[in-house]
Every structure is written in C-alpha cells, then in structure tokens.
C-alpha cells in the first residue's frame, strides 16, 4: 500500500507542478486583453478612455483643476468616459505597463524617447485621426518631426516644447548686492555672480545636475551652448563625439567653479527634483534646466513666485545653440480604432485646444488661475511664433507668472538656435556622462578627457550593434 500511496502522491504532486509549469511556459505575451472596457461598443454605450493626469506629488489644487477639465470634456463628448491616473515617466514604468497591459490609452513621453519608441513599434499610428484635426498642417515642422517616422506617419501629438534656460533666484541676487534685473549674459558673468553669491551668502552660487541621467542632459546643454555636439550624423552613420571642444570647455568650467571658486555648494548628486528643491528653498543661486520648470518650483517646492527669474543660457562661439525638448502625448499601441479616435479627441481637447482656440485658451487659463495654478509659464511655440504670441494675448488677464521676471528668457530665446537632443541611445549616453560630471564635481583630479573618450567607445559600441 505504501508504494501505491507513494506513486499516487508523487503523481499528484507532479501533476500540480506540471500544470503550473505548463501554464507558465504556455503563457506567452498574447494573453493581454485590450486595455480598456468595451471594444467597439455601440454608439449608445460610452467607451472608457484611460488617460494620464499629473505627476504624483502634485498638489490637490492641480488635481482639482484637472478634474474640472475632465468634466468639461465629458459634457461635450457624452460617448467618452475618462478615467485618469497619476503618471510619471520613469524606468520600469513603461515597458512593464506595456507588457502587462496596464498602460493607459493616452500617456505622455518626452521627445527624447519618442523616436526610439516609434522605431520599436511601441506607439500607435494615429495618422488618420490626426489628419482630421484642422490644424494638422500648421505644426512647426521641427516639432512635428519628433513624432513622425521616416514615412511621415504620425504617432503622437506634440503638446509642449521647451528650450533650456538659466534660472536664477532674484532674492538671492538682491541679497548678494547683484541687480536681479540684469542677469548674467556670458559664462564669465555667470561665474562672477556665482562667486559673489556663495561668498556673501554661503549658499551655492551655481548648481549643476549630475544624477539619474540629468547630468548628461545638462552637460549636453552646456556643450551646445559652447558650440559642441555629442553625436554627429553622417549619412545615416552616427559617431559619438563626447570629447568635443564644447564639452571639454564645459567640464573645465565646472571644475573651476567647484574647486577654484568653491561656489557650487556642498551637494553634488543632484537630479531634476532635488535641484529644483534646493533652488526653491533658496539654497541655489543659478542653474540650467528646461524652461518649463516654473510649475514644479512654485507648486511642489513652494517657491515664492517673486523670487523666480529666468534668462537665456549664454551662448559662446559658432554653432552654439540651446537644447530643445518637449512632451508628446501618445496612444497605446494596443488600442483599437474606437479608442484611438477617442484618444485623439481627448488630446485635442486637453492638450491642444488651449493653444489655438481663444475660448478654450481663456477657459483653460481661467480654470488654472482660479485654482492658483501657473498661467504664462515660459514655453516655445508648437505651431509658429505668431500663433503662440496670440494665444498669450488672449489669456493676458489670467497670466499670473510675472512676465517681467522671465522677459529675459522670452526675449532672448527667439534668437537662439534650437538644437535637438542626440538621437542615438540618448539614455545610455546621458547615463555615461552622469559619471563624468559626478567625477568632475567630486574628485579634484578627475581626468575627464579620458573619461569622455571611454564614453565615446561605450556608446559607439551600442550604436554599432544596432
């Protein structure tokens, strides 16, 4: 009997395990259902569209303003029901969600990754629905190129474009005896002002991001401003040139500010969020970042709006320019036609209308203003400058960002050449450059020239393997 029991018991266990293993190996990736509810439902039944709202940690007023706009959209489009979720574009989020089938229908991605995702076939082709928009052919061609593939098909809607700005704390300037209405216009002036601030006030006069890929990002900004380029394309072949003159000059500059002037404070592993936090808390005098960070500074970091000032990044030398970037609203590649159409309607309403339609712009600005959200943040035109200026005129009653404080940026950016981010393996390039920036800021004798050559090799091998 024992041997029989053994056999049956063993068989039973083996059966359980076998079923488990079979199910494991059998479950491929094709078990994911469509992302949203009713597929191709009757026109009477509203379809549910899952969209992203704001980044986690945004304050309640911002969420309230968003919900108000959702209500407006649903009122105008009774056949679409909006379901929103907080969303932040970070590491594991996208691929995991895409593979797991939990990616929202509409989500936002930065320009940096847009082209790669399009190449990988991970964004939905929305050309048909896009062309139905009446402003489809008035987009700034440089901006639109960020969402198109080689054949001109459209895979997303550009919703915002930014340049790089030099942000400075007007209050710190005043306290240090500098004139906040006359911000620095050359790199030497930046250096001098940084030293004044740090000597007089004991805070960092100038800060540089260095962690979580932002180090490479801002180093590229500094490189472009000095006429260098990280990657050079020659008829389809991309060569990594991280050790170009511009980068070398930029790193030497950082080295001098850090070790000779000691004007960069004591915290060097800053990323986008922590440098904003330091700036908002009055611990940093100046730094470079995207021109669109005002919202984060005022809301999340609680900065006093009167202290904020923005100007253009000093350009130095031929071929210099400012790094441009932006945000794309894209559609989940697994969405069906009904959801794609609904998605484009939502994107049109929420992201685009306020840029081209007076009533929509005024309503949007009014809603934001009433919940104390920023209106009039520095931005770059998605269409053309005339449209952009006009949209600002429409909402001028609601603008609560002091335009005098940012006039230096607004006036100067038009004259600066806009240079797009390096295209090939941008993330890996930025990550590798992070290491170089950190080394320069924390090790007095860092040999950044040879480190840059190593970066060249490393990223070039990734490019060649493609």
């Amino acid at each position, binding site marked *: 009997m*024992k041997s029989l*029991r*053994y056999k049956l*018991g*063993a068989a039973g*266990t083996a059966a359980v395990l076998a*079923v*488990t293993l079979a*199910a*494991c190996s*059998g*479950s*491929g*990736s094709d*078990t*994911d*259902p469509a992302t949203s509810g009713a597929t191709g439902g009757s026109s009477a039944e509203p379809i549910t569209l899952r969209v992203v709202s704001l980044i*986690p*940690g945004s304050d*309640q007023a911002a969420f309230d303003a968003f919900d108000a706009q959702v209500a407006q959209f649903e009122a105008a489009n009774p056949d679409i029901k909006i379901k929103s*979720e*907080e969303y932040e574009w970070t590491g*594991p*989020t996208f691929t*995991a*969600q895409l*593979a*797991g*089938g*939990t990616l929202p229908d509409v989500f936002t991605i930065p320009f940096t990754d847009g082209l790669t995702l399009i190449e990988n076939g991970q964004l939905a082709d929305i050309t048909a629905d896009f062309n139905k928009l009446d402003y489809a052919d008035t987009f700034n061609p440089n901006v639109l190129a960020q969402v198109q593939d080689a054949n001109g098909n459209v895979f997303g809607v550009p919703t915002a474009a930014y340049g790089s700005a030099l942000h400075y704390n007007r209050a710190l300037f005043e306290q240090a005896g500098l004139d906040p209405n006359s911000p620095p216009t050359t790199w030497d002036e930046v250096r001098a002002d940084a030293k004044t601030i740090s000597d007089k006030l004991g805070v960092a006069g100038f800060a540089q991001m260095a962690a979580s890929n932002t180090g490479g990002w801002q180093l590229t900004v500094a490189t472009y401003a000095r006429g260098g380029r990280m990657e050079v394309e020659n008829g389809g072949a991309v060569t990594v040139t991280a050790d170009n003159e511009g980068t070398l000059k930029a790193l030497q500059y950082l080295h001098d500010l850090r070790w000779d002037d000691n004007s960069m404070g004591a915290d060097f592993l800053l990323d986008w*969020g*922590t440098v*904003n*936090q330091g700036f908002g*808390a009055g611990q940093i005098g100046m730094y470079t970042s995207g021109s669109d960070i005002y919202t984060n500074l005022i809301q*999340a970091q*609680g900065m006093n709006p009167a202290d904020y000032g923005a100007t253009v990044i000093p350009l130095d030398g031929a071929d210099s320019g400012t790094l441009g970037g932006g945000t794309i609203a894209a559609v989940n590649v697994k969405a069906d036609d009904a959801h794609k159409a609904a998605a484009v309607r939502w994107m049109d309403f929420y992201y685009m209308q306020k840029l081209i339609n007076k009533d929509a712009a005024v309503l949007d600005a009014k809603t934001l203003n009433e919940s104390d959200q920023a209106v009039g943040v520095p931005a770059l035109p998605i269409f053309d400058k005339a449209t952009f200026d006009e949209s600002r005129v429409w909402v001028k009653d609601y603008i609560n960002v002091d335009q005098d404080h940012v006039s230096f940026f607004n006036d100067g950016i038009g004259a600066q050449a806009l240079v797009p981010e390096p295209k090939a393996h941008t993330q890996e390039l930025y990550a590798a450059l992070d290491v170089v920036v950190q080394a320069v800021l924390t090790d007095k004798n860092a040999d950044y020239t040879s480190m840059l050559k190593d970066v060249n090799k490393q990223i070039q091998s990734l490019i060649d393997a493609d």
Partner: protein
Amino acid sequence: MTTYSQVPPAVAEERVGPDANAKVGGTRRRIARRGGAPLFDSSERTLMSGFERRKRSVRFTLFAINALLLIVLLVAGLGPIIWLAKSAITPTQDTLRTPMEFFPGGTAWDNLWKAWVDVKISTQFLNTIWVAVGSWLVQMLVATTGGFALAILKPAYAKVVNALIIGTLLVPSVVLLVPLYLTILNPPLIGHSLINTFWAVWLPAGASAFNVVLMSRFMGGLPSEIFEAARVDGAGPFRLFWSLALPMSKPILGVVSIFAVLAAWKDYLWPLLVLRDPAIQPLSVRLPTLQQAIELDVYLAALAISTLIPIAIFLIFQRLILRGAGLGGAIKG
C-alpha cells in the same frame, strides 16, 4: 593553552545548589553556607565569577565600562531616533541651519498633521498595513499547512518537497528578482498581470522557506502520541490540523508572525518594482520619492510616522522578538 570545550567530569558532577557542599571555588562554598540561595549560582554565571566581581578594581572597571557602553548605546541606538522625533516637529529652516538645537524657533506640531492629511501619508500607512496583513496571511497559510503536512502527515514524497524547499534557501534572492518580476507581469493560471495589485506582494511573500522549515521542525517536535491518540479516536487530518497542531504551535506562530509583519513593513525593492501607483504604495516605497515633492519638515514628520509602528511592535513584543532573533545563536557549528 588549554581550551575548555569539554567539561571535566569532576566539575560537571558538582553543580552548586542552595544546599550543596561544593568542592569547587571556595567563595561559592562560603556563599552557600551563609544559608539560602547563593549570590551567583553556577548555572547562571557568565564569564566573570562572583569572586571577581567583588574585587574593587574589577567592580570599578566594570562600572566604568558599563556606563560607557550605556552612553554609546544611547547615543548610537536611541540618538538618531530622538533626533528624528525632534525634527519632525521643527520648522524646515531651523532643521537646516541649526540641526542639533532643540526648537530654537518654536515647534511645528502641524507638520505631523500636514504629512498625514495633505501629503496623505495616511494612505501609504494604510497600504503598509494592508501589505503586512496580506503577506502575513499568505505566509501563515503556506507555512502551517505545508509544515503540518510535511511533519505530521508525512507523505512519502515529503523528502523531495523538503529538499526542494531547503534548496531555495541556498539561492540568493537576487536571482529571483527579474524572473519573478516577469512572472508577476504574466502569471500562469491567472491570465492578467498582477502589477499594481497587492497580490503581487502578498503571494511571493508566502514562498519563505525559512517559515516552512521552522514550522515543520516545530510540529515535528510535538509529541506524536497525541496525534496517534486522536487518530485512534477517528480524527481526520483536518481535525488534527485545526484542533491539535495549530493550538500547540502558538509559540512558533507568534515568532513567525512578528517577523513576517516586521519584514513586510521594511520591504522596499520588491514593492518598488510591482506597486507603481502611489495610491497603493506602502510607506517604504513612497518616502524616497516624497522628498522632492514636499517641504523638509513635513518630510521628516512623514519619516517619523513611518517608524512608529515598528518601534511600537518592538517595545510591546520585545521578549518575543529578541528570543526569536537569537534563535541562530543557539545553533553552534
């Protein structure tokens, strides 16, 4: 020099008791003769003997060392926690400028309120409790049923299962990270991803070989006569489990439970990967990202709130925890 690993037979036979006539250690004999229990029973003693303790030089040195040790422990063990508690109710600027002073600018008790309500730490606090409770349940289910079956019911294939379970102890957890993540993305038998659900944290928590081994060892050590007697009385395995094995296993269940809850409270990397939505994230995952979104003093208040429960659990269940934590010490070589 001789090392003492084998107790010389002569000494072993002479255990000092209240009325013993000890042949070893003159002092001890003297103490015993004074009537009543000796000051330091041989069975209680540690490295230093009672005789040595009474020497003035030793007493003084010992006192100094103990005092120093206490100060070091207070500063190192308690210090950071006290600092956190203090800073949780201190305004940001004071913490930044004069971190070691006590409330130079007054207190800011509303930091705690702000953290709980505005930043909604309460949500993550509840999530952490949810995660802990669920993980505990799954662990209890797996360990008690599995341990019972392996130790009491003892099927013939128990050896294979036992070997497989102990085998997982030898595999460092890092190996599991990526494939387990992919399994959660595409679990068998379930069909859809478990990402962003609590199940993604609860279910893998049950696969703790340590728990199963503890339970099956303990249950195996229970007197088998009781089970035999119950079987004779016609009790089926479910009765044996529910009415006999479980109640008798209360001590080990207590230890395993406490450590399961503490482990769930402290878990970071795994929830970080599988719970992406802040609305269901536990405290440990939320706190690092929170730093950039809120002011420093509210942030420190949030940190302080997150330590409350584990410290409370520790203070209440101190004996149990310390005994369980020292389990490993009982195993030598």
